[in-house]
């Protein structure tokens, strides 16, 4: 019995990203956190959007006194010292860097220290709110976590960025498991869509690596099977919009060979911007609104390790 309890207590780190800015990453992170906290889980939100932190705002907290930059610049010794309460039971926050320009681009040592400290923190769930873009820091946070969640909007721009994000994360993961510099070069080259080697898809890349070194290619194949990002479609207005989640799942399977899990969707509703305007979290201000219910369902899917199925649509 104790063992089961221990297993349940195991900390999980989730990262929420998506490539494009303004698609609701912070909002979804904050509200997932609130729903988890209501289920009596100890939750720590980390605003890893170092250049444009505003997770605290979606939670209705003013500019915090202690932020990540205090930690990154060693004004405090341990990351524990920058944790602030949110006023919601079981939910605490590490706010993003506010002041320093260099905090947006931590160097390798700072990033390693941050990740190392995150691992030591006590919580049931640590949620990382990632910034926009596909910079190495963001990708590394994404790959560091136990579960990576991608947010998209049902629009070409957001979808394009999501695919770019998946591709970048994917290839960065590849690069971490190979040591041969020649193979690393091939992976770098493959990132360029117009590469001269004719590598278009991850499949082409693996085939290519296999001709160089068979075992390494097989290791990469294993990595493909292990990479299972999750997808949330935000601001859906129609059933067709929800359908995009299933379509992206199919496309990822066929293009990347990866299993994208369609975790859920969040309906578009004016109450979301009203809650942002009033600087009060959606799940607190409008707990029974449709978007809030959608996020609740996402949390349940996450906890039960389930995903959307077609039959849920009808």
């Amino acid at each position: 019995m104790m063992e089961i309890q221990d297993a349940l207590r195991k900390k999980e780190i989730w990262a929420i990203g998506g490539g494009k800015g303004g698609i609701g990453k912070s909002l979804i992170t904050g509200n997932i956190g609130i729903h988890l906290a209501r289920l009596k889980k100890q939750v720590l939100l980390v605003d890893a959007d170092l250049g444009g932190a505003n997770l605290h705002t979606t939670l209705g907290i003013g500019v915090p006194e202690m932020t990540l930059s205090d930690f990154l610049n060693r004004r405090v010794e341990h990351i524990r010292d920058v944790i602030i309460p949110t006023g919601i039971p079981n939910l605490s926050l590490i706010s993003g860097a506010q002041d320093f320009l260099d905090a947006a681009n931590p160097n390798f040592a700072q990033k390693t220290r941050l990740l190392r400290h995150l691992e030591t923190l006590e919580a049931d769930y640590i949620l990382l709110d990632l910034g926009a873009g596909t910079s190495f820091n963001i990708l590394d946070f994404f790959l560091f976590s136990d579960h990576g969640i991608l947010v998209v909007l049902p629009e070409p721009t957001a979808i394009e960025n999501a695919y770019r994000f998946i591709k970048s994360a994917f290839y960065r993961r590849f690069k971490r498991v190979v040591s041969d510099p020649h193979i690393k070069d091939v992976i770098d080259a493959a990132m360029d869509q117009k590469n001269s080697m004719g590598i278009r898809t991850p499949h082409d890349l693996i085939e290519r690596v296999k001709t160089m070194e068979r075992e390494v290619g097989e290791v990469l194949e294993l990595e493909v099977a292990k990479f299972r990002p999750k997808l949330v479609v935000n601001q859906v207005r129609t059933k067709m919009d929800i359908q995009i989640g299933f379509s992206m799942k199919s496309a990822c399977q066929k293009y990347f060979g990866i299993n994208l899990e369609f975790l859920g969707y969040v309906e578009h509703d004016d109450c979301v911007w009203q809650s942002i305007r009033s600087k009060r979290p959606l799940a607190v201000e409008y707990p029974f609104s449709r978007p809030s219910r959608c996020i609740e369902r996402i949390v349940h899917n996450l906890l039960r390790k389930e995903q959307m199925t077609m039959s849920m649509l009808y």
Partner: protein
Amino acid sequence: MMMKRVEDLNFYELLEVDPGASSQEIHRAYERIRKVYEPNSVALYSLFTPDETETIRARIEEAYRTLIYEDNRVRYDAMLRAQGAMPEPPALPPQRTGPARTGRTGAPPAPERRPAAEPPPASGPSTPKHDDIASVSQLVGEFTGPAIRLLREQRGKDLRAIADITRVGMRFLEYIEEEDYRKLPARAYVRGFLQLYAKALGCDPERLASDYLKRYDAAMNPPKK
């Protein structure tokens, strides 16, 4: 699991169905996946070039045409098995067109397999070749009662099989084919029956139903003077 490129996926993988899927499941999967890969599909944006999407679409059509017709599917399964791409004791229930309750979900009944991989039966009018079927369905044009019957016969299905899939009484299916409108129930029910029938045949339910009901209306509600 080996990673495959899209061109190397077999028809079941391409349509994302189980090799034991019923024809109705295959039809549904096809309808869904066809939408995913339609030109300008937003979910594919930036991932596939238009040419690649076109290739995938063509493969999906081919997969559907192969798997939806019993004879073609039997031949295709045999080919997959010969390549070792499909497990030898087939996951297919002995009667794919049988009622759903004895279908895939329940314990599969005794494996009295059809003479599956035997040489393609060359005789008999009920085993038309792939090309014949395609041409007939193009020829149909309008879905009249006799046209629907012809289509059903081309699929090698009897009324009983359709009744099992659709759960519509054989009697009504017969009236539909005979265009015996007066014996059919109210129009709304007929519409539902037609859509189920269309799905079982792998036709567009909306088109079949509206075609048929046009004739139905003309006969049942002649325009008032």
